[in-house]
């Protein structure tokens, strides 16, 4: 440290460099996929079934499968997640139980995705005998995104000022009426943000659906929740590692559709959060 000003410049340069090392590749990844994937995208690609051993045709069944799975996951996870968030923010006291719940949420978020796959296989597919089906896959994904929904919803609920609750209670409303009529409406944007982030996560995960629902190739669409389904992330895995000689264009095209789907949801979530923060009246 002979010359503090100069060493500061050098240090800041390296910090900047490190930041570039992260941000530039992210940009490159998105650009590469966009540039090489765009030529593959047309109406036929999005609306046709895969043909010639997945070397031609489209990815429609995979898109539909992912939509089913993600909807199922949210139907399961949103009510439980929201109620859990209400419990943590409105009812829980700072005690040992509360600490354990928070620790469980952290752990649930940290369980490796492939372990969720194992769990879904053991519980839903084998034990409950749902078989490899949309039901099993959705429930597995639902449990996986629970921590995201709980955490974001809780933050939204807790950011509603205490005075709102006090006024409502002092006017004679019950605790639940207060939560429903006053706290929840003010927390809705945050809850929606969490839900969309959960959707994005569920849409992109592959490992949890590997043995619970994903079908290698299915020409027809699933008819009930007990059917197997194709899914976008698994389809991308299959055509890039399991099937030889797939046209690169199709691979990039599939990657692009998946990436756009997931990033679009994240973008929507970010925008809602941003607007909400700006609009806050308190």
């Amino acid at each position, binding site marked *: 440290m002979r010359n503090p000003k100069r060493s500061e410049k050098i240090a800041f340069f390296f910090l900047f460099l490190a930041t570039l090392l992260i941000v530039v590749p992210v940009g490159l990844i998105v650009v590469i996929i966009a540039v090489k994937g765009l030529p593959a995208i047309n109406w036929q690609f999005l609306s046709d079934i895969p043909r010639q051993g997945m070397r031609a045709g489209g990815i429609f069944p995979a898109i539909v499968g992912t939509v089913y799975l993600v909807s199922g996951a949210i139907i399961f996870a949103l009510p439980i997640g929201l109620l859990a968030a209400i419990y943590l923010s409105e009812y829980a006291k700072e005690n040992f139980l509360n600490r354990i719940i928070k620790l469980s949420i952290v752990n649930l978020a940290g369980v490796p995705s*492939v372990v969720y796959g194992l769990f879904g296989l053991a519980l839903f597919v084998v034990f409950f005998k749902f078989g490899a089906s949309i039901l099993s896959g959705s429930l597995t994904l639902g449990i996986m995104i629970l921590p995201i929904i709980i955490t974001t919803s809780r933050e939204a609920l807790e950011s509603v000022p205490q005075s709102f609750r006090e006024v409502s209670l002092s006017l004679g409303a019950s605790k639940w009426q207060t939560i429903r009529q006053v706290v929840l409406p003010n927390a809705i944007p945050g809850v929606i943000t969490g839900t969309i982030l959960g959707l994005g996560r569920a849409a992109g995960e592959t490992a949890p659906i590997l043995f619970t629902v994903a079908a290698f190739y299915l020409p027809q669409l699933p008819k009930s929740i007990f059917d197997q389904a194709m899914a976008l992330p698994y389809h991308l895995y299959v055509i890039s590692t399991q099937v030889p000689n797939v046209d690169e264009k199709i691979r990039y095209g599939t990657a692009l559709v998946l990436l756009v789907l997931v990033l679009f949801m994240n973008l929507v979530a970010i925008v809602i959060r941003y607007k909400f923060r700006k609009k806050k009246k308190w």
Partner: protein
Amino acid sequence: MRKFKEFIIEKLVLISGLASIFFVILIFLFLLKEGLALFKFVNPFEFLSGKSWYPISEPPQLGILPLILGSFVVTIGAAVISIPIGVACALYISEIAPGKIKEALKGGIELLAAIPSVVLGFIGMVTLVPWVKSVFNLPTGLTALSGSIMLAFMAMPTIVSVAEDALYSVPKSYKEGALALGATHWQTIWRVMLPAASSGILAAVMLGIGRVIGETMAVMMITGNSAVIPKVLFSNLFGFAQPVRTMTATIAAEMGEAVVGSEHYFALFAIGIVLFVISFAINVTADLFLHREHKKV
């Protein structure tokens, strides 16, 4: 009637609150239920230290040491790359970047966190793998090194965001005090901010490593999937220039073929137990560090 309705709702809320505990226990129980059955055939010590993984030979050899070492090599590599870069980036974002750029950078990091791992695996296969192959002049680019680089990218969003939170929660007075004493901005960061945020940064690093150990799809697609004990030689960059196979990739790649109720099936669940225990330990420890941070401030 209203009282009754309220009572029901409050019970529902409580039950949902407890759901996370319930699910963590349920996951662990079902892993145990399927995984412990293995130890009727193999003793736990042999399972953890056995040097060969030939699950479909007759009789099957179910030693997961090569898989543990595979995960270990890839994780070390990813940690070496992602920790310094991640912490440096967190410092840049929280201390140096001006307002607008700061928000843009945070957005970029969130974007990276959102990219599905199978997409990263795919892009790694078509760009990084050929690059590693030609730069290091290897017979194949599907190596531990490629896996480490890709995983480093997946760990960075976690490291950056948790470390940035930790830096942000250092009281302003610390920084103002140091600056008032005539320290430069960098001296303040290096001697005051970093030590004050150290336990949060440690938690960030641990959570990042947890992410790496549990990562499945990208690893399966680019590490070459060879279940042999990595040789540590100078000529193969200390084990990094050869194909390895991680615990997660083994489960993902083989569960599809394993017959429900076979030794192979049980063994894959037993690997799941190992992964669950590791991630549990990491998350609990990281949480303790984060808590210490909050108490101190």
